[in-house]
């Protein structure tokens, strides 16, 4: 219908359509409908998937979003959240103008101001703080929404603050621990191969379907389709092509119910399970001897460590029967190729980076690295980065000297070598501590963008609330008024959803262009807001005329300008591209290392089962398991009083974290803030479906409605995170009901892993549940 190579097309209205077509935007009779192709991204659906969509616009208003059948990622398919875009974009509660607080914080008294005044105010207050205390006294906090955080690090660095963080999330326990571990062990990130590197996808002659896909701590129902790098519904495509499943999940997910083998482990014991599997694979000689010999470092030491995890011991730790573990290990090791996708709960292990190290050893020992249908090395498309995922990329963007100067004051970098050396985050737990103590220097302001920490991101949100409300100046940038904005903001800036902005998606395999085709009120893109403010604060850091020019410069390695990319509107690097961004077997071809020698980008040139990088950072160079901070083994006394393990943070398919509670079509599907319990557990507690119950832990209690389902383990409970009620009072002290509902109040800060990354215990706290 729409020719490739053209981003937009005008569809003329058709006269004389029958009445039955009324309400069908495509059948409009009074005027034109414009269809624009682009990448979808947050804000709107949330997610970081990288699909392509068609945005339908009539009279300047978004009327429909459909999948783009010509985009290779999803071939026209789409998630519920992107299909609900008309209700998101045109929602009456969208923030549409900059607001200035005129009452006390939390009072809900706001005055509409112009962008000029808003930026002027921000500039003035931020300069004041910088002059008086130094730029490092302002923290720039992101969440995971919108175009990730490229624009936030951009603003922080232009201002001169090193303190860019995932504000509130203990141990930055989402993705960063997995990235840090893979980067240390393999020198690159390795993700399951669903032929995403080829525009031909499953028809690519080089690709083969994995014989086995291990879904480790991931489930499809809440998948954001391609789910970043983790296949999402591509798993179903592969099942149709013969792929068998091994599922590792305490909850019986849909995938678990379709799996050959399902291991229902106790939350937080993934490291022990992985070591038990390694022990079987090594002990029974099932590993890929040629690959291990040629391409790995430290096999004997790993073998010795794995021997500390005999199956009886692992069974006792994980609650998974020994014979099932052995069966899964054998099946994984003897099915070649095999791929593994691995989710956020691993980042929540007490020693997250050690756990992920163990998983990485699994796909290394079995020779499943960078082979078709295995776990393939994934780099930014064409080497283009807008959002930096590693220190190398940050240095590439900002220069070594600049970054090393900033690192001197970066919070947490002095205490945690991994935080210092891998990725430029300030460490969330230490940021909070420093806000409270003022040591070694005071924190005076928070720039909070794509982050709703009061309802979602933060563990111990009350502690965060108390710390942030004492700061001198806080800005919140968001699409809707949130509990966080109501509670702490002095200025609220309205951000645009994806069809309201120009942007580039660089965090998957394709480069996708996103283009502004509509406006809502005075909303601006996060990039534009930060670009303008950065220019005011430090004109030298902003040599570009506008964001499009900035994007074009960043896109250099692709050979495309922003406008050219928009016309396409996606591009994939060809095979053997010099950036080394397309598989396979790049270690053999010398495509991974800077010196172009064969091998991996690690000190030894091999996959480091014994990780010398960890060793140089003072960390255990071998994987190990540490018990969750609370649990039947670590705190048996507490377990007697609080006999259920509380899992939080499982993803919903209709909500992205704390978003979408005000979108009618989506909320209709999941109307209530629930806690899920096994029917037998509920019965023993005299709880019926729909009852309001307390979930109580040693740190407090919150209210939820009981939902009974046999997919939950009898000794566990599951509560979705991110709940607030936009339909209730937003002012203090209610703040849209967060204090009643936010389950993170049961979870502490400051329990980060030894490496600094990982450890937010949001899958493993103990609780008891009883009727309200």
């Amino acid at each position: 219908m729409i020719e490739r190579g053209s981003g937009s097309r005008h569809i003329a209205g058709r006269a004389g359509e029958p009445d039955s077509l009324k309400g069908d935007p495509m059948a409009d009779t009074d005027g034109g409908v414009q269809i624009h192709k682009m990448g979808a991204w947050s804000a709107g659906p949330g997610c970081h998937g990288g699909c392509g969509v068609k945005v339908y616009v009539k009279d300047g208003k978004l009327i429909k979003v459909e999948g783009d059948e010509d985009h290779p990622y999803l071939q026209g398919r789409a998630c519920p959240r992107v299909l609900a875009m008309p209700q998101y974009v045109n929602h009456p509660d969208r923030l549409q103008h900059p607001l200035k607080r005129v009452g006390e914080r939390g009072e809900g008294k706001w005055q509409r101001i112009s962008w000029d005044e808003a930026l002027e105010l921000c500039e003035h207050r931020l300069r004041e703080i910088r002059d008086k205390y130094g730029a490092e006294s302002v923290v720039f906090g992101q969440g995971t929404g919108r175009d990730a955080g490229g624009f936030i690090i951009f603003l922080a660095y232009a201002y001169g603050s090193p303190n860019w963080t995932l504000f509130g999330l203990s141990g930055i326990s989402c993705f960063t621990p997995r990235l840090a571990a893979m980067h240390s062990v393999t020198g690159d990130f390795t993700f399951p191969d669903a032929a995403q590197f080829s525009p031909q996808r499953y028809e690519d002659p080089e690709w083969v379907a994995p014989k086995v896909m291990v879904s480790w701590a991931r489930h499809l129902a809440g998948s954001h389709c391609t789910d970043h790098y983790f296949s999402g519904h591509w798993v179903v495509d592969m099942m149709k092509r013969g792929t068998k499943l091994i599922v590792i999940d305490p909850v019986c997910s849909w995938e678990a119910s379709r799996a050959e083998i399902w291991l229902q482990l106790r939350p937080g014991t993934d490291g022990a399970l992985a070591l038990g599997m390694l022990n079987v694979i090594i002990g029974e000689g099932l590993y890929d001897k040629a690959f291990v010999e040629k391409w790995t470092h430290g096999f004997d030491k790993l073998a010795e460590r794995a021997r500390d995890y005999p199956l009886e011991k692992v069974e006792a730790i994980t609650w998974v029967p020994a014979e099932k573990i052995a069966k899964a290990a054998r099946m994984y090791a003897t099915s070649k190729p095999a791929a593994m996708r691995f989710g956020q709960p691993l980042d929540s292990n007490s020693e997250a980076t050690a756990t992920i190290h163990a998983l990485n050893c699994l796909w290394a020992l079995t020779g499943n690295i960078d082979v078709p249908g295995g776990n393939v090395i994934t780099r930014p498309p064409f080497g283009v980065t807008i959002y930096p995922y590693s220190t190398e990329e940050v240095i590439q963007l900002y220069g070594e000297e600049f970054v090393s100067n900033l690192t001197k004051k970066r919070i947490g970098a002095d205490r945690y070598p991994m935080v210092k050396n891998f990725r430029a985050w300030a460490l969330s737990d230490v940021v909070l501590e420093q806000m409270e103590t003022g040591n070694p220097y005071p924190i005076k302001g928070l720039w909070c963008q794509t982050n709703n920490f009061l309802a979602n991101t933060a563990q111990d949100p009350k502690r965060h609330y108390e710390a942030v409300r004492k700061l001198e100046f806080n800005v919140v940038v968001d699409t809707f008024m949130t509990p966080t904005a109501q509670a702490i903001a002095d200025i609220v800036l309205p951000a645009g959803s994806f069809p309201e902005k120009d942007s580039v998606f660089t965090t998957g395999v394709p480069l996708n262009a996103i283009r502004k085709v509509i406006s809502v009120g005075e909303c601006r893109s996060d990039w534009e807001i930060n670009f303008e403010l950065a220019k005011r604060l430090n004109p030298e850091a902003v040599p570009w005329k506008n964001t499009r020019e900035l994007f074009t410069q960043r896109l250099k390695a692709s050979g495309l300008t922003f406008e050219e990319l928009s016309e396409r509107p996606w591009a994939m690097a060809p095979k053997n591209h010099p950036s080394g961004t397309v598989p396979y077997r790049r270690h053999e071809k010398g495509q991974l290392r800077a010196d172009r020698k064969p091998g991996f980008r690690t000190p030894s040139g091999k996959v480091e089962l014994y990780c010398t990088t960890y060793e140089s950072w003072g960390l255990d160079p071998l994987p190990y398991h540490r018990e969750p901070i609370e649990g039947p083994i670590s705190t048996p006394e507490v377990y007697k009083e609080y006999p259920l393990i509380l899992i939080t943070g499982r993803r919903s398919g209709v909500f992205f974290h704390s978003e979408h509670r005000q979108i009618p079509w989506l909320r209709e599907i999941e109307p209530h803030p629930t806690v899920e319990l096994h029917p037998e557990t509920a019965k023993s507690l005299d709880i019926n479906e729909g009852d309001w119950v307390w979930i109580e832990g040693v740190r407090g209690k919150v209210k939820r409605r009981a939902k009974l389902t046999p997919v939950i383990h009898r000794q566990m409970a599951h509560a979705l995170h991110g709940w607030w009620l936009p339909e209730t009072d937003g002012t203090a002290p209610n703040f849209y009901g967060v204090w009643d509902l936010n389950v993170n109040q049961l979870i502490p800060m400051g329990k980060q892993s030894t490496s600094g990354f990982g450890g937010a215990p949001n899958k493993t706290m103990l609780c008891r549940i009883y009727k309200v």
Partner: protein
Amino acid sequence: MARNGLMIDYEYCTGCHSCEIACKQEHNYPVGRGGIHLSEIITERPDKSLRIDYLPFPTQYCNLCLPRTTRGEKPACVKHCQAATMYFGSLAELAKLMEARPHSALFTPI
């Protein structure tokens, strides 16, 4: 004219809800009304393990996306199904597809 229907290969339906929202968007249905309604059916196998099935049921508000299919497009739900497990076509075509699909259902909403 051959009668058309919707076939669901529910071996692969993951319960993602895209069909429901695709339909609502296409027809601008309000909360409380939709052309397709997803059900979850959980059953225990003899070995006590669970089988989770999802099945979308086309309601009285499903018109098989007549305007779309007249234009040669797929129905909104079929196009957007994340598991690509919904099929639209004539009953004869769909019945043929069903022969190789052990867990499938055919609907003729209109």
